[in-house]
């Protein structure tokens, strides 16, 4: 199925949940309303053969009203086609439905996204940090936090233009 046909099918089913559409290197990229993530991934998996969840990742755009994004990469293994779904949430209420019930692989991916961006995947069976130390008290990939480690002692800021 061509991207245009798939887009038609998606639009006819989820018209109000599709916010914008883009196509890059033959990969359809759709920004969707965050509430609809489970519906749309379920539809893509069950009816469009997008049975493989390649990746989930987070992204932070401080200048946007909905700052935090979650990006889903799905792969149709039958036709070898890919699709990218983006859903944005606010920093004040970073909640989005977990897709673990659809894709078991989402378990660790969502934990990682939670670990680095603090996105709360509602319905995740075990949403705890996966890569960072347990006692970390912030989400390091959010842009309001400095890249440098606060415990560094041998760097004199005056030598680094800070």
């Amino acid at each position: 199925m061509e991207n245009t046909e798939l887009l038609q099918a998606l639009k006819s089913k989820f018209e109000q949940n599709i916010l914008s559409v883009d196509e890059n290197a033959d990969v359809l990229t759709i920004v969707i309303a965050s509430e609809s993530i489970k519906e749309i991934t379920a539809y893509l998996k069950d009816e469009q053969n997008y049975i493989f969840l390649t990746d989930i990742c987070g992204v932070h755009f401080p200048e946007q009203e909905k700052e935090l994004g979650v990006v889903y990469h799905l792969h149709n293994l039958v036709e070898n086609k890919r699709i990218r779904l983006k859903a944005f949430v606010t920093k004040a209420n970073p909640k989005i439905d977990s897709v673990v019930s659809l894709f078991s692989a989402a378990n660790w991916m969502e934990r990682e996204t939670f670990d680095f961006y603090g996105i709360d995947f509602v319905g995740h069976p075990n949403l705890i940090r996966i890569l960072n130390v347990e006692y970390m008290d912030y989400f390091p990939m959010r842009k309001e936090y400095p890249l440098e480690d606060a415990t560094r002692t041998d760097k004199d800021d005056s030598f680094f233009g800070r």
Partner: protein
Amino acid sequence: MSNSTVQVAEAPPGVEGAGFFATSLDSLVGLARANSLWPLPFATSCCGIEFMATMGAHYDLGRFGAERLSFSPRQADLLMVMGTIAKKMAPVVQQVYEQMAEPRWVIAVGACASSGGVFDTYSVLQGIDKVVPVDVYVPGCPPRPEQIIDGFMKIQELVGNEPLRRRYSQEYKDMLESYGIKIDK
């Protein structure tokens, strides 16, 4: 072997006479310890590769009495931390240190083990001296085997001149306490 070029460690200062040699116990024990250190290599990255060269035939750390690497902390005297230590690894380093028997020494090889190196970031421990006391730091990224050997000889110097009472002193216990390291009573 009259034409041997093997250098024998020099005897400590003492009183010598016919059939006897008198010196302090400290310097005798120091001499023995300094020339039979068993290192525990804790190698996590490229500094570990340099250490492998250091142990190899060309540089041959065995010349310094460190022929026998101890891969169990229980039998090791010298913890050699070589490479980046992630914050998640920090408790492991500390546990390895705790499992070593006294007297024990630590050498931080390379920029990462000494200060975090280029990895000034949220996930990397900014120097192993945040979790264990370090005796000698070897700079370099990574340091050449010569530098590692130089650091090792500095350790030998410390070991050879250490008073036997040091490890029982209150200062030493307080120092370990400040790192949160358990002390055997």
